[in-house]
């Protein structure tokens, strides 16, 4: 039996309904960032169209496609967003027309100009993000410089047969909601006063059997730790290292407290000692952010992230903080009844609220010192910064134009990732194109012999270029000829499926950059479809 699906959904819930599954990932804030973003896309190939599709479906605000190519037969075969009727039309217009149909909320437009001539205009002026697909290296360099100067996120990608490469660049990208999975911040080793009082207020000896089985494990560990410390004359501070042998004693203490071995909460407490009785540490990433010059010296032009980092420095320097970041206030599920769980939750929440209020005071002071209005940073932004203070992330990328000028910054990373051959083959292809104004493997009036001859000749030349590059980059190895031959054989032709796969990754990174949630890959990616490999590597 099946319910006939009748729609009763109202217009108000329509959007929430449509974006339901993604809202659960990046919430209202991420969706808001996406809907106010403007993406400029250079290129209108299958790769460009597929990348855009994945941004249009989740509801990016606006996009513009810049390309002067016209639709050819090849496009009809590989690009899902052009139709046979589009033959001869500007390809940018063709894909914009089809792509905008995917989502009525998204505004799209086409600029029928070459990338070079479009760059003469203010095309990047209002862009949040730039995607460049299948452009020659010198144009990529130019775009990269312009984006770098303006602090605009850039994703560059191209495909050749089964292979594809990606590169992301932006001088600085800060992430508050990195969604990093960290152990909960329970402060068991050095409980704050409210937590210690709460723990002391529970007298296990007066509890009956049923209530005893409902005491949250956090309280049990706190009590066991305290009684172990007292018995052994130890003073446990937040930075005290407790050895494994000592933790065993604490565990024994818990077992002694248990009325019997079957109580789940005591078992949970026993199992959590190793992970939860740990010295308090500020994550290395957060320490780096706090000691960054940008956090030390703020100006009215500083990004909000840095003004808040500055305030966090001041907070940390105050006696109130006692060397600890604001408490997030969330506690994990544990064996307990609702009443005692909520009571414990309240203790953490109260401390978190107090920390937040104290931190907000420092934010206001920082803003005042810059003559900025107190509401320049909203309460919501302060809440998020406090909640994720341990998860703050800062990424600094290397400029792509420098890499194209002088080679990868860290070639050894390419070697150890197993991506060197693919990478250098693509780079050799860039050089080849600059020299011959055609892609390797593509026959034209300047080439001699049949298709096989062209592939053979071009392979030989690409191998020579690639090996020369490797010498320049001081890498003592020669390029694998089969990888280069495969690239020449492909003639840089697009395979739809590889374009779609690479487009998935382009848009994945684009969304992370736009929403400032989750941590984008820093900074390159090689896709080797022939052997089902996707290699993320820092070039």
């Amino acid at each position: 039996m099946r319910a006939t699906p009748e729609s009763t959904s109202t217009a108000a819930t329509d959007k929430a309904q449509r974006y339901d599954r993604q809202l659960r990932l990046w919430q209202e804030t991420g969706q808001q960032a996406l809907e106010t973003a403007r993406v400029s896309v250079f290129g209108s190939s299958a790769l460009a169209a597929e990348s855009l599709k994945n941004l249009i479906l989740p509801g990016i605000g606006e996009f513009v496609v810049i390309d002067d190519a016209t639709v050819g037969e090849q496009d009809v075969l590989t690009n899902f967003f052009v139709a046979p009727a589009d033959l001869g039309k500007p390809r940018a217009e063709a894909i914009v027309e089809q792509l905008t149909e995917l989502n009525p909320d998204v505004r799209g437009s086409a600029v029928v100009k070459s990338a070079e001539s479009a760059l003469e205009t203010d095309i990047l002026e209002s862009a949040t993000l730039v995607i460049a697909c299948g452009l020659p290296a010198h144009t990529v360099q130019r775009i990269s410089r312009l984006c770098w100067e303006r602090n605009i996120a850039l994703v560059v990608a191209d495909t050749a047969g089964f292979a594809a490469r990606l590169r992301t660049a932006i001088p600085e990208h800060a992430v508050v909601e990195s969604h990093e999975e960290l152990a909960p911040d329970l402060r068991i080793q050095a409980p704050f006063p409210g937590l210690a009082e709460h723990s002391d207020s529970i007298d296990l000896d007066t509890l009956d059997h049923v209530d005893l089985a409902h005491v949250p494990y956090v309280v049990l560990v706190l009590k066991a730790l305290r009684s172990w410390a007292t018995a052994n004359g130890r003073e446990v501070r937040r930075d005290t290292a407790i050895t494994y042998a000592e933790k065993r004693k604490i565990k024994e203490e818990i077992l002694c407290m248990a009325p019997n071995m079957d109580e789940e909460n005591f078992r949970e407490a026993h199992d959590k000692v190793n992970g939860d009785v740990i010295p308090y540490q500020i994550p290395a990433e957060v320490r780096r952010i706090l000691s960054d010059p940008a956090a030390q010296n703020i100006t009215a032009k500083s990004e909000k992230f840095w003004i808040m980092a500055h305030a966090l420095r001041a907070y940390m320097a105050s006696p109130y903080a006692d060397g600890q970041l604001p408490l997030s206030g969330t506690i994990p599920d544990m064996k307990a009844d609702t009443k005692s769980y909520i009571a414990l939750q309240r203790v953490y929440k109260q401390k978190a609220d107090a920390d937040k209020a104290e931190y907000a005071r420092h934010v206001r002071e920082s803003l005042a010192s810059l003559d900025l209005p107190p509401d320049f940073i909203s309460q919501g932004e302060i809440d998020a910064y406090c909640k994720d203070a341990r998860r703050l992330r800062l990424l600094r990328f290397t400029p792509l134009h420098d890499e194209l000028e002088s080679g990868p910054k860290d070639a050894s990373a390419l070697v150890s990732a197993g991506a060197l051959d693919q990478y250098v083959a693509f780079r050799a292809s860039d050089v080849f194109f600059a020299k011959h104004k055609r892609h390797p493997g593509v026959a034209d009036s300047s080439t001699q012999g049949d298709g096989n001859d062209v592939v053979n000749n071009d392979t030989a030349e690409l191998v020579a270029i690639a090996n020369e590059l490797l010498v320049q980059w001081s890498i003592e190895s020669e390029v694998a000829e089969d990888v280069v031959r495969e690239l020449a054989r492909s003639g840089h032709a697009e395979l739809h499926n590889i374009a779609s796969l690479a487009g998935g990754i382009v848009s994945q990174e684009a969304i992370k950059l736009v929403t400032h949630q989750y941590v984008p890959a820093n900074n390159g990616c090689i896709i080797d479809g022939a052997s089902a490999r996707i290699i993320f590597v820092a070039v």
Partner: protein
Amino acid sequence: MRRTDQLAQLYGEKTAERIAKARLLVVGAGGIGCELLKNLCMSGSCSKRKHIKRPKAEVAVQAISAFNPGINAHAQQANITDPQFDFDLVLNALDNLEARRHVNIQCLAAKVPLIESGTAGYLGHSTAKPVEQKTFPVCTIRSTPSSPIHCIVWAKSYLFAQLFGEQTDEIEMDEDGDMQELAQLREEARALKRLSEAVGCPDFAWQVFNKVFVQDIERLLSMEDMWKNRRPPTVLNYNGLAAGALDSPDDQSPPSATAALEMFRSSAERLACRATQRSERTLLMFDKDDRDALEFVAAAANLRAYAFGIPPTSVFAVKAMAGNIIPAIATTNAIVAGMMALQAVNVVDHRLQDCFTVYLTYSSSHDRYYMKERLPPPNPRCSVCRRHYLTMRLADPARTTLADLLARVTDGIGTSQDMRLGEDVSIVEGSRILYDPDFDDNASKSFEELGLGPGSMLTLTSEDDDDAIPVVISIARPTYISCAITFEGFEDFRGFPPLEQAAPEESDDEEIVAVVEADDDVVVIEEDVLTKPVKRKMEDESPEAAKRPSLYDVREQPANSEIIDLD
């Protein structure tokens, strides 16, 4: 340039030809499914591109009902084991475990390779790892809820199912607890079921409210022992709540008790209207994307939460919890579908050694976003693979009885000693017991009388020999051969060669078919030179896992929220 010319250049001619000839089945038309269809079509494996340019729902319905009616309750006429379909490869793009299990079994039975997939937010993979659905003790759900999820499970699996559904659907509850209490709960459920007769009455919502938030809670309160160490619930007051100030809550914030009551009343009315609009009562199933059902469950769950002093939950959150929602985004779908299409090419190109399990992972603290691993060899202890899968055709389903089938299988099917089940055999169809040594009421009934037709799958298990391998029989369309019962696809599943040996270079897809005549039956032994099954269930599954709710599973709906709406 024709598409095949270009593809031939990149894939190689032979591979391009194999792709063009391949018969592929994509099961599921959600985010991954649509993306995958596009990739496969653009890779040349489907010549009629116009199909995918039609409206999504139409394509999806067509794809599903034309190719695999097994997933669609309405069009269930056959299953993919039926040789008429003859797929080279099945690709799963499903969002629930039951359907995945079902397709897995069907593929094992049909000896067709399966590529599995799934995503969760930024995570994705191309082989599914089934996640155990969490269950709760029945008493927690029905008598002593302590968290919002308990109230939601109660509203969805008990209240909604009893009032609007076909039968009690308590799969999310373990029957474990005080026998007397359980008996009382069963009586309570029956009373509620009776109340569902009142579905057309104008005061239906009030009656239900009175039953579950007044009478049932009064009954619970009378069991004083239960509340010695717990906070007792409070009886809700309909008029008191209705008199409260009615705010208009959005989906993101928890509704007040008054708002929950209003939502309860209005959604119950809409559901009642839908249930009674035809002369025959329409039974409804909970579907998270059905607004009325969602509102009813959210409202009832929140009213119960108020009664038990549990924090209320927003409609948005109820939807996630009641629907087991997993976040899904277009980008991850694109990456996973791209990987699946690559794997599909490897399979149709007979390069199983190039197939991998691939994972998209997310961790902000290191840079490994992607991993692949070799396919593990078949697990010899896997209870899903360790069965004989047969296809059965009947000459006359109206005359052939279950006893006829038993007579055929008692001594073993064909010549294999492995397929000997012995005297005492049980036959089940999904969770429905058709026959066992203590229950032979159905023995003399015909297949037609029992409602068993093409698409039905029977599991035959020996009751006196635990070592005997169960036999799974899928019923195909009737034959015109004059014998009563014909078995096909007779093969010992345990003797699989390792994957490395799997791909003989020149096969040309020819199958060697030997026909052995024995008695009045024809046993057709198909010996496929290609070793087709690729995907095996990696984990030991309990026999319950083989239950087959999926043929009637309506959860896999073609209409989904994040679908590419093309055309």
